[in-house]
């Protein structure tokens, strides 16, 4: 295993939450506000969902609210099935969210109201990016880093990168493929479904795959 031409430099981010002042107490109000709320707000409630480490597993804030506050489990499942990474832009995402709500309202035209205080609060986020103060020169160093890096760093490289790079590819697998020339490992990394894990779950899968690769590299084959 030779040294890569370019080390992997870990970055991370934090979000500062900003209220839009808009809130919805039921599905009709939610629909109305989704129709006009800023792109930044929709982005925050879907793509950035994974930055806030949730203990309960949903895919976005809309699914979370439908399940926990409205107790509309079916609606929550519909929302959970929306994959924001498949869309080319926020307009498509907005359309998909409205479609889910419209279909649900056709089946259940009188949605229940959330308890006061449990309304859906539309927020936006200001994101600050900064170097995490860590770099990996090879796969073994990468393995140590991935085990101990703060979760927001995993968000930055695994989720945010998909939007930043515009190709649905994350920073980790890109580096493994381009700098280390390990295409097979990169493909395996890309098979991790971003919607099905918490940040610590992603960390666990990446560490497991990389560890396996490092072990293989270390094995001495008898001549």
């Amino acid at each position: 295993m030779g040294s890569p031409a370019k080390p992997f430099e870990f970055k991370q981010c934090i979000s500062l939450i900003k209220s839009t002042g808009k809130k919805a107490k039921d599905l009709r109000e939610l629909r109305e506000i989704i129709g006009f709320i800023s792109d930044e707000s929709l982005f925050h409630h879907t793509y950035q969902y994974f930055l806030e480490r949730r203990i309960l597993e949903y895919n976005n804030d809309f699914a979370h609210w439908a399940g926990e506050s409205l107790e509309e489990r079916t609606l929550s499942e519909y929302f959970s099935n929306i994959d924001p990474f498949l869309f080319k832009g926020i307009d498509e995402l907005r359309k998909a969210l409205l479609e889910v709500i419209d279909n649900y309202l056709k089946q259940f035209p009188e949605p229940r109201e959330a308890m006061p205080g449990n309304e859906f609060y539309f927020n936006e986020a200001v994101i600050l990016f900064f170097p995490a103060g860590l770099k990996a020169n090879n796969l073994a160093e990468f393995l140590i880093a991935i085990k101990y890096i703060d979760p927001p760093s995993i968000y930055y490289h695994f989720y945010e990168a998909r939007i930043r790079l515009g190709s649905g590819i994350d920073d980790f697998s890109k580096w493994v493929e381009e700098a280390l020339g390990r295409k097979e490992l990169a493909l395996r990394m890309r098979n991790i479904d971003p919607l099905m894990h918490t940040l610590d779950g992603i960390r666990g899968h990446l560490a497991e795959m990389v560890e396996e690769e490092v072990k293989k590299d270390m094995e001495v084959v008898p001549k």
Partner: protein
Amino acid sequence: MIDEYSGISPKGDLILLQKLGEKMSGKSFLHINSTRAGGGVAEILQRMIPVLQEIGIDARWEVIRGDSKFFDITKKIHNALQGNPERITKEMWAYHFEVNQKNAETCRLEADAILIHDPQPVPLIEFKKGGRWIWRCHIDVSSPVKEVWDHLLNYCNKYEATIFSVGKFTRAMVVDQFIIPPAIDPFSEKNRELTGGEVDETVTKFRIPVDRPILLQVSRFDRFKDPIGVIKSYRIVKKYNDCILVLAGSPATDDPEGEIVLNEAREVAGGDPDIHVLLLPPFSDKDINALQRIATVVLQKSLKEGFGLTVSEAMWKGKPVVGGAVGGIPLQIAHGATGFLVHSVEGAAFRIRQLLNNPDLAKRMGENAREYVRTNFLITRQIRDYLSLWYSLENKGRNILEL
């Protein structure tokens, strides 16, 4: 001081703090509130100011002065903002303003950023001499008495930005509203590790038996903290599990109602030798720390709450917390994972019994709780957020900032 947090706070928070310190180096940051002791705001400011200074910010903390008439009025304003029916007369508002005007003459208000905590000093904005003024609201204003909120809004709308602890506390305003939860300091007297001897000292001082499980609520004696409800829950639990209840609180200089509620709690406790109602003097932080460490289950059965930092304090000590599902408590307690959320006296009693009868569950929940606080509710995260907000105001209009 910041080095102390290394290995405890998330590394990224410390890196960002240093970076923001470099960016804002030499700039002045003034905090103003209304009490030097008692309550979460004063506690956190005592620790936050030296950390800010260490990373290169010229940080200061001023406390406005007022007489008992002023604090009676501000307590009524506080209660009204939390939804309690209160009437604030024109004369009362005039006095609120007058006291602030007098303070403006003695406080040095010049700074690059000025963070005003809570409604007591909010009229100081009228005496602005420059800098970025931010109003930090620590209380739940989601259902206020409308006239009181509307009056306050005349001041709030003159600020450049506002901060609320939880999203649901925000209200429609013309200025930007940021959401920044408060935090605890792991090295403060209230949260630092204690020796066995230090814990024993407190136990002996207050004559608390440690031969049975201990239920504890630490909070001001305030109706919204429901000390009577806690006693009722304890009485239900006591039918099944022998235990001890400790209700401990400090008075605050801006809370004239405290004594009335304390007497009510003592009356309801009656002659039960297993109920210990403790009125702790200010600066009893070490005793509170020790009480939290000897507790088996910690309660925060609030009916209304700002954020409820005592929840994070107990969670940091690895304790399972049973908390009212109000204010900022659900933000700290993920129900069933880092504690239990309850809605009634009966609910609190049920969850306490569950924890007393399942020590493994209590242990696991306590461990989850500590980690949750480490990543979300330590002071370094809060300082990071205040500086990030200030930095974002300096770069207004940009949603993505790279350092």
